[in-house]
């Protein structure tokens, strides 16, 4: 038997991540776990654009809410990864990326043997609506097997 562990990549996304971490604990107990969070650049870009619409109001870029959102997004991502690692309860690797979430997840999954992610659609409506556009993209394009879990009910 080989000593080389297989790698499970867990996509840590706001509000659905606890279900993914629990799935990693139950379904991949012996894997090397990589927790991945992707900050969505489009959110800060939207704030940058709104600020540009005000023509800056004579202020410099230090007042740009887009730059503040970039900084806040970094803090929020680190916070989520820390909580997720704590819930996993065993050593793991943390990856904090930013860009378009679905594309970054596919990129990171190139080195993984299993991708664990949650449905990001409406849990009340089984069928196509239970997958949002991002998890739909990931399920369609993942280069490795995907474990798709329902998010926990709150």
């Amino acid at each position, binding site marked *: 038997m080989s000593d080389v562990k297989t790698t499970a990549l867990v996509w840590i996304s706001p509000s659905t991540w606890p279900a993914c971490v629990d799935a990693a604990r139950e379904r991949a107990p012996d894997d090397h776990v990589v927790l991945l969070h992707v900050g969505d650049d489009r959110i800060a870009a939207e704030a940058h654009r*709104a600020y540009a619409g005000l023509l800056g109001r004579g202020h410099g870029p230090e007042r740009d809410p887009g730059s503040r959102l970039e900084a806040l997004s970094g803090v929020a991502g680190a916070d989520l990864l820390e909580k997720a690692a704590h819930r996993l309860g065993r050593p793991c690797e943390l990856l904090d990326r930013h860009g378009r979430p679905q594309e970054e997840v596919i990129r990171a999954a190139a080195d993984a043997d299993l991708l664990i992610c949650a449905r990001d659609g409406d849990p009340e409506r089984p069928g196509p609506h239970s997958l949002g556009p991002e998890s739909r993209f990931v399920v369609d394009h993942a280069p490795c097997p995907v474990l798709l879990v329902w998010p926990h009910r709150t």
Partner: protein
Amino acid sequence: MNSLAAEIVSVGLLLGVLAFAVARPRGLPEAVAAIPAAGLVVVLGAVSPADAWEQTHTLLPVVGFLAAILVLAQLCDDDGLFDAAGDLVARFCGGRPVRLLGGVFGVAAVTTAVLSLDATVVLLTPVVFVTASRVGAHPRPHVYACTHLANSASLLLPVSNLTNLLAFTASGLTFTRFAVLMALPWLAAIAVEYVVLRRFFAADLAVGAHPPKEAEQRTVPTFTLVVLGLTLLAFAVTSLIGIEPLWAAFAGTAVLAARALRRRRTTLPALWRAASPLFCLFVLALGIVVKAVVDNGLDTGISRILPGGESLTTLLAIAAVAALLANLINNLPAILALLPVVAPAGPGPVLAALIGVNLGPNLTYVGSLATLLWRRVLHEHDSAPSLGQFTRLGLLTVPATLIASTVALWGTLQL
């Protein structure tokens, strides 16, 4: 210089001034290009010195009003008003993202109406991001709600948008009459935005969140809220008894500024910066450049396109042309250019133009020409996020809000 040459030079200078304002080379303030451009149109004879002075004289109170509102919003932020609002929304949502969106809509709509779109974009958006993260919700729908409502919810009061202050001055309406006429268009735009965003972000809003932790509760700055409420009341009262509502804005700002200075929460230089003096100079200079563009041919061009009267189709046509112009250049020069043409036709056409220039920017924000430059700037910083989601949302909301608000305005005018 003949009229055609003057028009070509003025348009070239206007585009140069706007491009400079968006690109801001080496972080230089926008006034650096606008003031020489204004001087040049006067020297070249595209605008007479008397006309330039008259335009500046008309715009001066508007710019003073804008500065007062910008300082007022900053003082509210310094006193923790937006943090308290974020906290209230977090508590109200009780772990349900759809309720969070409703709360964000309420706060963003009121903030934009009372403290202007600047306050929503610069001060409220980061608070909304933090609030969504605190309750474990996806921040995207809520941030987009803020940036969209900064435009869509800026119809209600003369103070909600710099474009409104300009139109308000030109329309001859009282503060309260303006608010009465724009109440239904304002509500219509917000309702359309809510329905579209709720569906567009259905996936993000479907997954649950959690209530905030009790220990994080913030205190509500009661004094600031009371002063803000009294300032609003004073806007209505001053306009009813024939005093410029500008003085109400100055009074409210002075009370909060004096208190913040006494408590050492702010400094005089900080208040001066909050008033954006260089932007105020930019507006005055832009006013002269736009006047050159308007007087040398754009006025006859626009009046040939726009039909006369106050019928629904006329109002819709004015709103559509205004929205198009706001997207081609920017809403500020767009309303400056449209006002001389629509103001003589009465308040209906002025307010329809305002609906167009305020709602139109949700398609491109700065005006597409400027957006092209903006994208180049972003590209230089090696991050070029896709415009797809933003453009699709704009295409879904802008035509619908334009129609709904203009129909609501027409309906109000019939009452």
